[in-house]
């Protein structure tokens, strides 16, 4: 075990502040430091994940304040898994964006990596914190860096997208604050475990109202249906790797917050059905919208939203199997969608419009990138033997075991739609003629490595899903077992007070 949970948040934040300072001395450090930091975090987080998989959950109290009163960090199989995943993606994004486009210049790179660090720190914080207000703070950190990164290209469109994101984000913050205020006023505590422990004390009306405000606040981050208007624009206008980071990091953090609320904090049984319904609606609306898009990244954005809908459906099944499937889906989506964004951003590298029609015939000119995009497309629509298949299968099995046949049918029908739009793009890449005014940009070596890592993960999980299934099982067990979570967190406090 290397490091501790608090370092996972502190180091990137620290790095974010240090980058400009050290950058004054040695410009290249602006790019190198984040990589080193993320690499360290990855090692640390992975070793902790190994530890918690085999031993008990790591719970760290900040500044000696014990559990119900102070802020504590919970590095459980679930949170550890998600944190590791996010850090890994952060690393991939760093590797990819090292000297990507305008980041070559000093000033933008500084901003870029500062915000990337903050984004990772915030997202990891959302996942591993055990305090609901602390989580709100981290959500804000993540959101603010996300707004900034959306507007990174400083064009008219980027600014507009960023502004939309900001608008929605502020709605989200207000809703969250209201929800937290309701809970605090009723229960007088902000510690998640404590809230969960005392939830039965809360009057139903308050409980439901708080939950609804949470739904709205976190739903905006987690891209559920009527609240995800910002997403397509933000994904489209942000730099390619940032799109990957959104899909792989920000949204995952939002989903985590949502399921932690629904599974652990609140004990409202109907919320599961709500998740299923809202997930299905999100899935259907997003996938059907994706089919008519003419911009590549926008299409990927809708697809991303749709996948999140599917994740919610899987969580909404409510069984350990469902949770397992949902986590598996999150893992796969966090691998595949970044791959699509990264390779996609090279496919439309020099294009202004980022039109799908501009990828015509690139298969001959950039074979590996195209191949990786195709691999991603094959994987995300769930074709065996790639990783996406196993998660889709898990979702369907879990749903079938609960007798949700109609849901299976809907999910599968939507999958057909998904196939159509992904294959249209793949067909264009390989079987159309390249138009002359498209300038091909060969990917840099670091970007290539980043994509190849993701691609090989897809293949490895595809051929042997059992490599990850043990962590996923642990994580789903962790999420399902609310009592254990409460006891774990609170017992630390009690043992210290005694």
């Amino acid at each position, binding site marked *: 075990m290397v490091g501790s949970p608090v370092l996972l948040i502190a180091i990137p934040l620290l790095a974010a502040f240090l980058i400009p300072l050290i950058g004054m001395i040695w410009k290249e450090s602006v790019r190198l430091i984040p990589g080193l930091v993320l690499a360290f975090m990855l090692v640390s987080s992975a070793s902790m994940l190994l530890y918690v998989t085999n031993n008990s959950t790591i719970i760290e109290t900040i500044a000696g304040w014990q559990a119900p009163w102070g802020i504590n960090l919970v590095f459980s199989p679930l949170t550890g898994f998600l944190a590791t995943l996010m850090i890994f993606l952060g690393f991939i994004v760093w590797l990819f964006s090292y000297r990507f486009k305008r980041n070559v210049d000093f000033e933008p790179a500084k901003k870029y990596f500062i915000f990337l660090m903050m984004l990772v720190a915030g997202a990891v914080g959302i996942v591993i914190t055990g305090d609901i207000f602390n989580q709100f703070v981290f959500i804000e950190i993540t959101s603010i860096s996300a707004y900034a990164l959306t507007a990174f290209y400083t064009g008219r469109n980027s600014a507009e997208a960023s502004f939309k994101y900001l608008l929605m984000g502020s709605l989200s913050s207000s809703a969250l604050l209201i929800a937290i205020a309701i809970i605090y006023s009723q229960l007088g505590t902000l510690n998640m475990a404590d809230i969960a422990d005392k939830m039965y004390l809360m009057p139903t009306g308050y409980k439901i109202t708080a939950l609804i405000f949470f739904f709205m606040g976190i739903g905006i981050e987690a891209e559920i249906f009527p609240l995800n208007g*910002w997403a397509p624009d933000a994904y489209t206008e942000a730099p390619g790797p940032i799109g990957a980071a959104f899909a792989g990091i920000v949204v995952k953090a939002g989903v985590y917050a949502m399921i932690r609320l629904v599974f652990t904090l609140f004990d409202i049984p109907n919320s599961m059905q709500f998740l299923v319904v809202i997930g299905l609606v999100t899935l259907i609306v997003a996938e059907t919208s994706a089919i008519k898009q003419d911009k590549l990244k926008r299409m990927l954005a809708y697809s991303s939203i749709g996948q999140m809908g599917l994740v919610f459906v899987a969580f909404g099944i409510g069984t350990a199997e469902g949770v397992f499937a949902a986590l598996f889906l999150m893992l796969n989506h966090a691998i595949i969608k970044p791959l699509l964004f990264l390779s996609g951003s090279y496919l439309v590298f020099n294009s202004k419009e980022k039109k799908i029609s501009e990828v015509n015939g690139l298969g001959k000119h950039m074979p590996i990138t195209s191949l990786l995009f195709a691999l991603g497309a094959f994987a995300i629509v769930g074709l065996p033997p790639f990783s996406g298949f196993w998660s889709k*299968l898990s979702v369907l099995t879990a749903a*079938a075991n609960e007798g949700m*046949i109609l849901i299976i049918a809907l999910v599968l029908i939507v999958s057909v739609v998904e196939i159509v739009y992904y294959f249209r793009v793949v067909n264009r890449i390989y079987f159309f003629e390249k138009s002359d005014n498209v300038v091909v940009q060969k990917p840099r070596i670091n970007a290539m490595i980043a994509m190849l890592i993701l691609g090989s993960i897809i293949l490895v999980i595809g051929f042997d899903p059992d490599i990850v*299934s043990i962590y996923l099982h642990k994580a789903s067990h962790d999420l399902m077992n609310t009592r254990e979570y409460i006891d774990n967190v609170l017992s630390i406090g009690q043992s210290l007070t005694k």
Partner: protein
Amino acid sequence: MEMIYLILVLFLGGAVLTWLLGKISPIIRDILFISSVIIPTVLFFMNVEVGHDVSFQVLGYKLSWGISYLAYLFSYIVLGLGSLASVYAVAAMKGKKNLGFFYSNFILSIMSMMGILLSRDLISFFIFWEIMTWSSYLMVVFRGKDVQKVGIKYFVFSAIGAYAMLMAIVIVNSLTNSLLISDLVSSFGSFSLSMKWLIPLLLLIGFAVKSAMMPLHVWAPGAYSNSPMAFTSMFSGALSKMGVYGMIIVMVSLVSYIPNGFWLKETIAWLGGITAVGGTLWAVAQDDAKKLLAYSSVAQLGYIIVGIGIGTPLAMLSALFMAVMHAIFKGNLFLVVGAIERQTGTSNLTEVSGLIRKMPWTFISALFSIIALAGIPPLGGFVGKWMLYESLIGSNHYLLVIVVFFSSTAAFLYSYKFLFGFFLGQEEKEWSHIKEAPAMMVVPMMILAVATFVLGTFPGLVLNPIDNGLQELGFASTQGRYWEMSALFNEWGNQVMLQPLVYAIIAVFLFFAAFLTIKGFKHTRYVTTKDISSSGEVPKEHENLTFSQNFFQPFLRAVEPFMKRRIDTYYSGIGNGLEAIFDFTRRIYTGNGQTYALYAVIFIVVLLMFKNALFGL
């Protein structure tokens, strides 16, 4: 290492290596390609035995691989046709671009088909099924023509089928807590009535798509004609048989146990009959040989489906025999078209003519295959047809037998069109430079042609493994009751002795051929096809007198009412409607931040208003 693993790994490794190392030099690539098809084939037939299963766990699902007698029969088709087609492909595809891609997909699809046959559980069945689908999809779009239309259509239909199947699989898993096919079969009787209907229906949709059953056949003509012919031979010959394979298992092992499942069988049989008629009529209307054969494949698969739908032992025998025969002759015909397309550059029946003297071997193999296709004795096609009619009459399907007979009579029309269009008719100067295809292409075709003949005389060679497969499915042994090595019997004990008939046919043919030719060769001289009685006119070199436009127009005029309505148009109507709806949903995302904020507000207001209804405790 278990032989089954080794075989699949060899296929997979061969596919990858062919692609990667193929970039070094074409010779390495060709050798790798052929050897990675042939070596596992040899290993399979030498070492894999029926009844030896291996199983392992993935994600908590128990997967099991092994081979059954029925699958063994189909593996003859897959590996036999696969080996021949791969040898052919090396010669046929010489000089084309992206060959590594082509070859590795070729190997992958053979691997996936073998995987399907080796799967003893539903998940690996599905996995290999999907690999087969996408590898064949990549072949369909390989030439880069009509990709968005034909390719997407193929994949969407395949996906609908596959997902129907997947749905059935997960439901089965939830019901039996096991994915083994044997467990599904054994516990099927205890399912509830709705599940008894739902599961076979869903599985059948999946298989019906692959075996191009009406009304799920619309992908087939485009896909068959769009992929390179060396692969279409596999596609139509072997790949579509996977649908047949699945269908047989479902129909025999599941549908038989549904109360009133009889009606489902009848429906399937009738759909097969309609498929046969529709496919045939459309095949007659085609001018492109590939399209013609593609529709003809649809029609031939229709016969097979009829046989499966009837489900009596004789019908099953006929369906399986026709499946084997169809693989042989239709595989061969696609190879023939490939050879002609390679030599002449076109596969349009109205453009090419009079190749018989240029490509005699190709002609002979085409002739054999066409005679087999038309079901004319003494070639193998007849045996399957005979059994089908006998089983239909014997099981009281009097109207269906008329439908099937109509279709197979109308098949003569396109059979003749195929032969005439390419090989007969006027020899044009345009094609005077055409040479016979290289030996590597001719030899596989001739082997297949000889196979049609041998199986016509000794159908027992194939009926024996079929019988083993049927016994495995629970039928009583049919040897001696319905067939001998070269004799066929029907339900009422009437018989056809093939050997004397074949000898009689050969004897009469040789006698009259000798009568007409022996003296003729000394005294006659060959005159060109320009030297014909055309009212005394001497046709000029460039004057093309071949009759090939609107070849069967009178017939088509007669059947016009049947062909007015195309299922295709309905599907494209549905497709367009859906796209319009999707375009509407897209507009939900207006791109306006205020709207999005409004959505958020509406969202929370609605939730708050209906909170008791939604979350009421």
